[in-house]
Every structure is written in structure tokens, then in C-alpha cells.
């Protein structure tokens, strides 16, 4: 059966629910006629954006995380990112795209099973041909674009349990988590009319809930279930090469333009504005973290400024389609300062070992951005959405955020416990001591004599 790819389903229009039924949709509706026509400009941009988002995971995130672990575990982090990229691609082809984006059985404002998970009519990408369109771009490009989001989300989680998880357990966790947590979540937010959170009116332009809160919460649950690294927090575990981390963060910043501006699924004004507000929020967050750290610890750090930039990128993700430049500035600065405190103070106070701060950065900035996306979409606050009732949209956003937190907490916990009881999540003490590179992969990152 052919996928009904009319303009009203898709990320550009998330949020045409209760609140923003008509006006927000105007630009996309203008392009999306009952018989959509391919636009080569849109297609060229989406081809490019897709490559940029892939660049975020390999090598962007891989290096960002890889630099922060100890030298004996560098390869394990790179391996996990690379393996997730390959595995998610295959699962996406087999059933992932169908469960996330099939619109079978969906109807606006009707809540049924297909409001939560997509049908199986697109299994093995059934019905996909070179001339099949999604809005104004080839559906093949849209499949690829969305695939890169499905890749980075489980890859983000690995930072929470870095340096201690078995590789086999990592593969099972990533596959099951993609299937049971990510795919339904993407469907509930992005599959258009009839989707659970889409119908609720939750604004999430590029994946604040689906990607960042989802992954960040899973990270917190994962580091609690798997336990601390041996010796944490008394044994020093400093980053082994912050230069990798800076290169990785820079690639994330660059690739994020594909993530946010690409989520317009068109080369249009919305994409252009998304790019601008992404840059502004990122810069403000980098400076926010820097300032908070300088004032608190008496000096600015390299790891601090790049962590702040990532917090800003996360926070602006849901807001990129609706916030204005001023809103992005405030949102970014707030995210930088807040994440500084969650990653450096809260974590040590509570004592959990979220090794690379997946929760402290992704979940916290995601929640902040997810909620503030509501008011910042209002023209009165410089936004470009159709929100007039700030409080109402704030509440809708909060509901979306809370739903994501509960969804990810419960399902991630069940998956992790299941794997722990069967396969075991953790390497043994000796393997952890030797390092995962040598003990799991029989390789070393550095053979310097």
C-alpha cells in the first residue's frame, strides 16, 4: 500500500493540533497540494541536511564522547557509535520507518493504537520508488533524513554508561530501545494528524522530546541500573583528549544545522530562521556556561564552553521552527547556565555516575527547551508561531515533556532490567580495569612507543 505522503504529515507541521490549526501550516500547505510536485531546491537541501545529521553521530558525537573517556576506552565509544549507525540503518529499513511514519489507520483527533505506533504497511520500505514523494522531496530522501535522527538518539545514550557496558548488551539495548521507545515516540510526535502528541498540539520542531529528553532520561535510568564505574568518584577519571571533544562538539554544532534547519523539510524561510536561531542559542549557551563556571570556579574551561554549546543546541531544537532571535538568545543563555549546574553540581550531590552527562546536558536542556518552546513561539515574545495564549501552550508543552519523561523512564528501565537479568549489562571487574578496548575488542587506540 502506498504511503499517503501529503503535506500535512511531517515534522514541519508538528503542532497543528488544538492550538495552531491553520496559520502555522500556511507555508507548507502552499507547497503541499493533493498531488505534490518535486522541488529540486528542497531536495538538494534535504540531501545535504541528511549528510549533516549523519556527520553529527560519526564522527561528531563519537569524538565528543571519545575525548572525554580514558584512553583505554576510546575505541569502545567510537565502536558503539559506529555499530549503532549500522544496526539502526538495517532495522530502519526492515520495520523502523514503518512503525515511526506509517499513517495507516490514522485520523485527526481520533486516538487509537495508530496514534501511538505506526502500522506495518511500510515494512521493508514497501511502496518506495524513486518518484515517490514526501511533501516536495523524494520519499527516499525523507527516509534517509529521518534515519539519521533514529541513529543519533540511541547513540546519545551511550555517554551515560560509557566505560563499563558489554558490547553485546549495548547492541541489544540499542536495538530494543529504538524499537520500543524511539519509534513510537517519533510516531506520536511527528506522524501528523491522528498522532497522540501531535494532536495534543505539542510543538517540537526538530526533536526536543523525541530525541533529547527521550535519550537523556534513558541515560539517567541506564547509569542508575548499570551502576557506577569502578572507583567512581574517588579515582580520577579525567578526559583523555579534550582536543577530540572540541572537534566533536564543533562537528555537532555544524551538523545541527542539518538537524534543525533540515526539519523544515524544505529550503525555505523557516529553514533559514531555524539556522539563525540555532546559531544564536548555541553561542548564548556557550557563553552562559562559561560565565557561570568562571564566576563559580574562578576560571573558564574548554570542556565547559563546548558543553555549553551542546546544551544550547539541545535547548533550541524543539524551538527552532517557532522561536525568534531574541527568544533563542534567552533560551540559549538559560540552558548554558542551568546545565552547568546540573552537570557539575547536581550530579556530584546526588552521586550517580552519568559518565558524560547525557542527563545533565541532553535531558535538562531538552526539558527547558521543550517547555519554553511554547511561550517563545508567541509573536508577543518575538516568535513566529501562532501561540497567543502563553499559559495554555506552556501547559501543552509541559504535558508533552512529562509524557516523554514517563515513557522513556518506564520502558528504558524494563529493557535494561531484562538485559541485565539475561545477558548481563556490565563487563567484569578485570575487563573494566584493563579497559574495554583491549578486553572487548582486542585493540588499542594508541600504540605509541
Amino acid at each position, binding site marked *: 500500500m502506498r504511503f499517503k505522503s501529503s503535506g500535512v504529515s511531517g515534522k514541519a507541521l508538528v503542532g497543528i493540533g488544538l492550538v495552531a490549526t491553520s496559520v502555522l501550516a500556511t507555508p507548507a500547505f502552499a507547497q503541499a497540494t493533493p498531488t505534490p510536485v518535486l522541488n529540486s531546491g528542497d531536495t538538494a537541501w534535504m540531501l545535504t541536511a541528511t549528510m549533516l545529521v549523519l556527520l553529527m553521530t560519526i564522527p561528531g558525537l563519537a569524538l565528543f564522547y571519545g575525548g572525554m573517556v580514558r584512553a583505554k576506552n576510546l575505541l569502545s565509544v567510537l565502536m558503539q557509535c559506529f555499530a549503532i549507525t549500522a544496526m539502526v540503518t538495517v532495522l530502519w529499513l526492515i520495520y523502523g520507518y514503518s512503525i515511526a511514519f506509517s499513517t495507516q489507520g490514522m485520523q485527526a483527533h481520533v486516538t487509537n493504537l495508530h496514534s501511538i505506533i505506526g502500522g506495518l504497511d511500510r515494512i521493508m520500505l514497501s511502496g518506495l520508488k524513486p518518484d515517490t514523494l514526501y511533501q516536495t522531496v523524494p520519499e527516499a530522501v525523507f527516509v534517509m533524513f529521518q534515519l539519521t535522527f533514529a541513529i543519533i538518539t540511541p547513540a546519545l545514550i551511550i555517554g551515560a554508561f560509557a566505560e563499563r557496558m558489554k558490547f553485546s548488551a549495548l547492541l541489544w539495548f540499542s536495538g530494543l530501545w529504538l524499537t520500543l521507545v524511539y519509534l513510537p515516540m517519533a510516531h506520536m510526535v511527528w506522524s501528523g494528524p491522528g498522532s497522540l502528541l501531535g494532536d495534543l498540539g505539542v510543538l517540537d520542531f526538530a526533536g526536543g522530546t523525541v530525541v533529547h529528553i527521550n535519550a537523556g532520561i534513558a541515560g539517567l535510568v541506564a547509569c542508575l541500573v548499570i551502576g557506577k564505574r569502578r572507583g567512581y*568518584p574517588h579515582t*580520577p*577519571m579525567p578526559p583523555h583528549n579534550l582536543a577530540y571533544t572540541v572537534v566533536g562538539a564543533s562537528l555537532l554544532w555544524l551538523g545541527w544545522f542539518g538537524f534543525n534547519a533540515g526539519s523544515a523539510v524544505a529550503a525555505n524561510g523557516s529553514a533559514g530562521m531555524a539556522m539563525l536561531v540555532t546559531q544564536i542559542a548555541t553561542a548564548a549557551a556557550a557563553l552562559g556556561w562559561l560565565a557561570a563556571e568562571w564566576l563559580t570556579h574562578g576560571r573558564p574551561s574548554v*570542556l*565547559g564552553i563546548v558543553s555549553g554549546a551542546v546544551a544550547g543546541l539541545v535547548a533550541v531544537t524543539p524551538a527552532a521552527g517557532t522561536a525568534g532571535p531574541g527568544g533563542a538568545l534567552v533560551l540559549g543563555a538559560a540552558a548554558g547556565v542551568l546545565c552547568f549546574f546540573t552537570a*557539575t553540581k547536581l*550530579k556530584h550531590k546526588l552521586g550517580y555516575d552519568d559518565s558524560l*552527562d547525557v542527563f545533565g546536558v541532553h535531558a535538562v536542556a531538552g526539558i527547558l527547551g521543550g517547555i519554553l518552546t511554547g511561550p517563545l513561539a508567541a509573536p508577543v515574545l518575538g516568535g513566529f508561531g501562532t501561540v497567543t495564549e502563553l499559559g495554555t501552550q506552556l501547559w501543552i508543552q509541559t504535558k508533552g515533556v512529562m509524557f516523554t519523561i514517563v515513557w522513556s523512564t518506564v520502558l528504558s528501565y524494563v529493557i535494561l532490567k531484562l538485559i541485565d537479568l539475561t545477558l548481563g549489562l556490565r563487563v567484569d571487574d578485570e575487563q573494566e580495569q584493563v579497559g574495554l578496548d583491549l578486553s572487548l575488542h582486542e585493540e588499542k587506540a594508541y600504540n605509541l612507543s
Partner: protein
Amino acid sequence: MKWITAIIKPFTLDDVRQALTEVGISGMTVTEVKGFGRQHGHTELYRGAEYVVDFLPKLKLEIAVADEQLEHAIEAISTAARTGKIGDGKIFVSELEQAIRIRTQEVDADAL
């Protein structure tokens, strides 16, 4: 003959080598080592995690000298490695019983 073991700050190595060459010392062995004395370590802070680094990187020089060279060698090292700040290092001197150049089988002062 004497055996000089000197612990110095790594960045002073070039100056020390030059000074030793000038007083006629023609060979030495250098090793990268870590340790601490009166200069304790420093702290590093990563996302709020503070680590105290106890052992600081230093260089260990090992030099065999003839008895009459000893004072010159000590002075050369002391001058070149001295910054006046804590952590400049130490010089240890001990007796050296024998020295043999492997290639020629020369012994003692001839082997240095």
C-alpha cells in the same frame, strides 16, 4: 668516578644539556619520570569533578663523571635548572665503581 642523578623540570633540559656540554660532559641518559617533593601536585577540574594530581612530570638525568669533573657538573646543572621557584628538583651524587665502554672494552675514565 661519581654517578650523578638529577631530577629537573622538563623545560630546563635544553639549557642543562648545553651547560653540561660546555664543562666537558659528553654523555647522559634522560628519563621521563613522575614524582613529588615539596612542590605538591596541582588540581584539575572537569565539569565539576576535581582531581588532585599528586605526581608531576619531571626528567631524571643520569650522568657518569670523573671525580675532577664533579664540581663543574653540579654547578652546571644547578645553574641551568634553577628557576628559583619551588619544584626545581634535586641532584644526588653517589660513588661509581666501574665503567666499561662495550665497543672498545675501555674502562673507567677512558670509558666516559
